[in-house]
């Protein structure tokens, strides 16, 4: 059987990650990479609805936070292991995605975006008033003792996040190039024409919001164990939502690789600037990059490359 270059790349990156945990000694690298990978999953997830289907979601932080708080609540109540917490977060956030989709997908464009923003605020208010998970004071999570065969817990979290990211990439790629993906693209291009071409638009949009929600929940579930302290303000941070939008926009939204490129580029720049210059400046960087890309290269980096390749061929 022929194994495609894509799966070879996935395997190489996975093995590279494993090797890195053996070689690197400075724990900062794992922390930084964890943050970048988390942003990558968020960007990929946002792009499934925003890029493939054409519905702009401003409420990404809510899905992320609900993922994190699902993990906190179930950890406190049942003491479940991390993999199960991630599955639970995926289910909860997938259902929220489905529900939000059902309630709001009749709205278009700006109205849909505002509805998702409102949903984020509603959920934040609920969590702020839910004392079981700490309410406005926040919740402390003790780092578990067990970190398998890795040298430290953060190394294990890094590998976990790497696996989750690779999984998200595979799902997103599959969605992008399948029959389902063409249906989603048809909805993005023209919903009425899509419906008349036999595309069950409502069902496909619900699949899209559900997958997006579940994926964002997955990105959020390990977060409490990474930071050990979570409060509503940090989990529902608008910056999470802005990053989730900016990264695919900068990378290119139409292709599955776009959000990955965008997240790796912007994410690593943010880390470099936070460490070397100042942590305030990194917010500015995202803003400036977003403005530059939207005005100069609205199709993102992938769009630029495609244009260049097409010009060469001619």
């Amino acid at each position, binding site marked *: 059987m022929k194994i495609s270059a894509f799966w070879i790349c996935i395997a190489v990156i996975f093995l590279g990650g494993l090797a890195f945990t053996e070689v690197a000694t400075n724990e900062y690298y794992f922390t930084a990479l964890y943050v970048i990978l988390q942003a990558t999953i968020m960007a990929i997830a946002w792009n499934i609805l925003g890029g493939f289907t054409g519905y702009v979601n401003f409420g990404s932080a809510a899905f992320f936070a609900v993922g994190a708080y699902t993990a906190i609540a179930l950890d406190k109540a049942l003491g479940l292991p991390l993999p199960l917490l991630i599955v639970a977060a995926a289910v909860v956030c997938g259902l929220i995605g489905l529900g939000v989709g059902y309630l709001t997908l009749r709205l278009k464009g700006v109205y849909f975006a505002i509805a998702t923003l409102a949903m984020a605020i509603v959920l934040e208010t609920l969590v702020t008033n839910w004392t079981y998970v700490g309410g406005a004071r926040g919740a402390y999570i003790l780092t578990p003792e067990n970190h398998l065969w890795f040298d430290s817990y953060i190394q294990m979290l890094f590998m976990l996040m790497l696996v989750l990211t690779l999984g998200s990439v595979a799902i997103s790629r599959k969605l992008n190039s399948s*029959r389902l993906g*063409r249906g989603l693209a*048809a909805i993005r*291009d023209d919903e009425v024409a*899509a419906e*008349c071409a*036999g*595309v*069950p638009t409502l069902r496909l949009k619900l699949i899209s919001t559900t997958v997006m929600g579940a994926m964002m929940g997955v990105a959020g579930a390990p977060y409490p164990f990474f930071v050990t302290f979570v409060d509503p303000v940090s989990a529902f941070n608008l910056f999470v939502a802005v990053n989730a939008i900016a990264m695919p926009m900068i990378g290119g939204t139409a292709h599955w690789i776009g959000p990955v490129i965008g997240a790796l580029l912007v994410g690593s720049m943010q880390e470099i600037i936070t460490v070397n210059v100042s942590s305030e400046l990194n917010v500015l960087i995202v803003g400036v990059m977003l403005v530059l890309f939207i005005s100069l290269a609205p199709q993102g980096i992938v769009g630029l490359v495609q244009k260049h390749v097409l010009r060469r061929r001619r």
Partner: protein
Amino acid sequence: MSSAVLQVTGLTKRFGGFVALQGIDLHLSSGERLGLIGPNGSGKTTLINCVSGALYNDEGTIVFENEDITRTPPHQRARLGLARSFQIPKPFHSMTVLENLRVPLEYAAWSRSEHRHIVDEAMAVLEMIGLKHRANVNSAALTQVEMRKLELARALAAKPRLLVSDEAMAGLSGSEVDEILEILLALNARGVAVIMIEHVMRAVMKFSERIVVLVAGRKIADGDPQAVVANEEVIKAYLGE
């Protein structure tokens, strides 16, 4: 007479207080070619929107091939074999011409498609419509005529039993009108019933076996083309008194 592919009975559609269509009856036999004409604003496109499911009618029933589709969502009507083209072309602009055809083949006609040969089937449609050489061009880069053809091609790719062509020829030159006409006739020769909405009378007269005239939401004539255009009420509606 062959069996009915479409039977519309007592169809009424209101927008608020405005009655766009009032008690329309429309019968279409399998494989028939029907011309639907009427002055601007007479309700032709509204009727088509009701038939294709883009709008739901307030009263009346729509039966397609013996199945009541009055409340069926548009994508399911497309799956049953009811295809339409749009007056203003609505190509999937991020896709190539070929990919545009894959959508109806993979959705509307999925149960009737050879899943392994979707690309071949799409190419066959493009060949028939004369867009084969543009298969891998992005659909946003097409000329106006080509976009009209793509509209029709996409409707054809849905493998319809009934095709509704909504002003596919508006604004085209004489030879371009003939091209589109030829495509529609070739399609009809394969047993597909066609409703043609058109203002280009030359094309309507050449194409239609029967003509229906709508004026201000009512059907005022239905019958043989020559008889219909000689009908006094029709002349009055178009030219005034």
